[in-house]
């Protein structure tokens, strides 16, 4: 029986507000709480449930990043993943490079399914899963809110702008998760201790033989244009008057 491969990214915690560095060279992330990208945590949970249902034998976690990202791999192992791989690379990689690295790993590991988050909440690209599917020549089912596997086929319900769409894809396939796919489990202390002894392999990006040449140059980070707070009104009558004054009711 095959494994499920889950790609995760270490990001600034979803609840922490990040600000631009005064010199515009990047975001001030030093000392901030770091976590598994929330969509990737949902991906881990989805993979664990598929393993528990007997559809797959094992859950393999993968991250492409620096040594610190092993903290997030350990958290994923504590959730219940069986083993982890860290591809040693700088933290800021373009999605195409990440997709190429995941593709190389997919060729080595031959997973029956790859589950990724639909987007990372730092760069907000939302590209890696689709790119991996293209490079691998396999199906993609993005923005998944329901996922079921029967034999060699996955049935995936996707959240699209106008509602819900259901696709059937042959495995192996790439699925990216939306928020409502599941509620990730909490990690218990004994699991954290057990996770310390689970296998975690490290290999250099160069060993995968992928083209890691950047195609974009980020010149500058700027704070977004601020919206200025407007007027406070005292009651509904004043509210309606303010809306009429702005001409938004006609």
């Amino acid at each position, binding site marked *: 029986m095959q494994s499920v491969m889950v790609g995760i990214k270490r990001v*600034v915690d979803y609840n922490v507000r*990040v600000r631009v560095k005064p010199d515009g060279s990047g*975001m001030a992330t030093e000392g901030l709480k770091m976590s598994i990208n929330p969509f990737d945590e949902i991906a881990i949970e989805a993979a664990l449930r598929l393993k528990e249902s007997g559809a797959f034998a094992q859950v393999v976690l993968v991250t492409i990043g620096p040594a610190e990202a092993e903290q997030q791999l350990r958290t994923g192992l504590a959730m219940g993943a069986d083993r982890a791989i860290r591809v040693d690379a700088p933290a800021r990689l373009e*999605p*195409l490079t990440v997709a190429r690295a995941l593709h190389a790993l997919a060729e080595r590991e031959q997973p029956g399914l790859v589950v990724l988050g*639909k987007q990372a*909440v*730092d760069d*907000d690209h*939302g*590209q890696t899963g*689709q*790119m991996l*599917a*293209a*490079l691998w020549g396999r*199906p*993609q089912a*993005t*923005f998944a809110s329901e996922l079921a596997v029967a034999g060699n086929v996955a049935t995936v319900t*996707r*959240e*699209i*702008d*106008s*509602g*819900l*769409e*259901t*696709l*059937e*894809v*042959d495995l192996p396939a790439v699925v990216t998760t*939306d*928020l409502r796919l599941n509620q990730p489990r909490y990690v218990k202390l004994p699991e954290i201790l057990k996770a310390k002894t689970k296998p975690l392999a490290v290999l250099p990006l160069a060993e995968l033989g992928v083209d890691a040449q950047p*195609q*974009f*140059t*980020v*010149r*500058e*980070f*700027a704070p*977004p244009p601020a*919206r200025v*707070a*407007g*007027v*406070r*009104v005292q*009651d*509904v009558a004043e*509210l*309606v008057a303010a*809306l*009429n004054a*702005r001409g*938004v*009711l*006609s």
Partner: protein
Amino acid sequence: MTRVLVVAEHDGARLAPATAKCVRCALDLQPEALVVAVLAHGGADVAAQAARLAGVTGVMLVDAEHNAVPLAATLAPQLASLAAGFTHVLGPSSTFGKDLLPRVAALLGVGQLSDVLAVLGSHRFRRPVHAGNAVVTVDADPQRVLVATVRLASYAGVGEGPAAPIERRTLDVALPAHTRFVSRRESGGARPDLMTARRVVSGGRALGSAEGFKLVAELADVLGAALGASRAALDSGFVANDLQVGQTGKIIAPELYVAVGISGAIQHLTGIKDARTIVAINKDPEAPIFEVADVGLVADLFKAVPELISALRAQGVR
């Protein structure tokens, strides 16, 4: 020489407003050619609508049965083939475009820019990161084709112009059979579409229940507005998932946005900051939503909203 290919979003009969917005963005590239690709089954009406968008110099129509439903796995190899000779490929940052364009880019061996909100030059763009907490200026490699999605809230659609020529294309591209469409459930109903509505009324956790949310829906109907919701309201199960406004939901730019019982987490604010007028009704005077609201009312929504509905009914809003 800049030649831009814009991927049309449509439902088989009508061109989505997203396409006119992508054309508006494409015009900022000052292209010599601006061609809209319509992949459809049938699609003559859609192609005719695309041909009349101001600034469009041509339409390529690929009419094939396999294009009856928009599957990224099927559309991407066709678009990668159509992209030959173009310097830029643009599509909307809707779920359609976000699903499709990265697959097209990877087939072309190039990266992709997501959510372009400003064009500064043929290969220099601005896009938001970190839930809109920052805007980055990015240079793309002019030696490669640039594939990008367009942040729809940042662009008004172009109007109509003289009809551009429509070219029918047949493509000799191998298409995969590994992805099959099963069904689609549209949850729209009678209200305007959230992505393109002039007015939007959203509710948050403070509504307390699906029953409470009906109050927000009633206000939306009085205003002829689309209905939206914060993630907190969705997580509480008050409404359907496709109503989510924010970083990981829909990013919108209506003329009027009314936030009812929404505290205003940064992830929500990033979805509404391009609204022309933001109105907030919340009983917590410290709620962050008031920092961005043009008109704020600190009040119990269960009292204020029924009053507002009566006042708007009395006035006869159009």
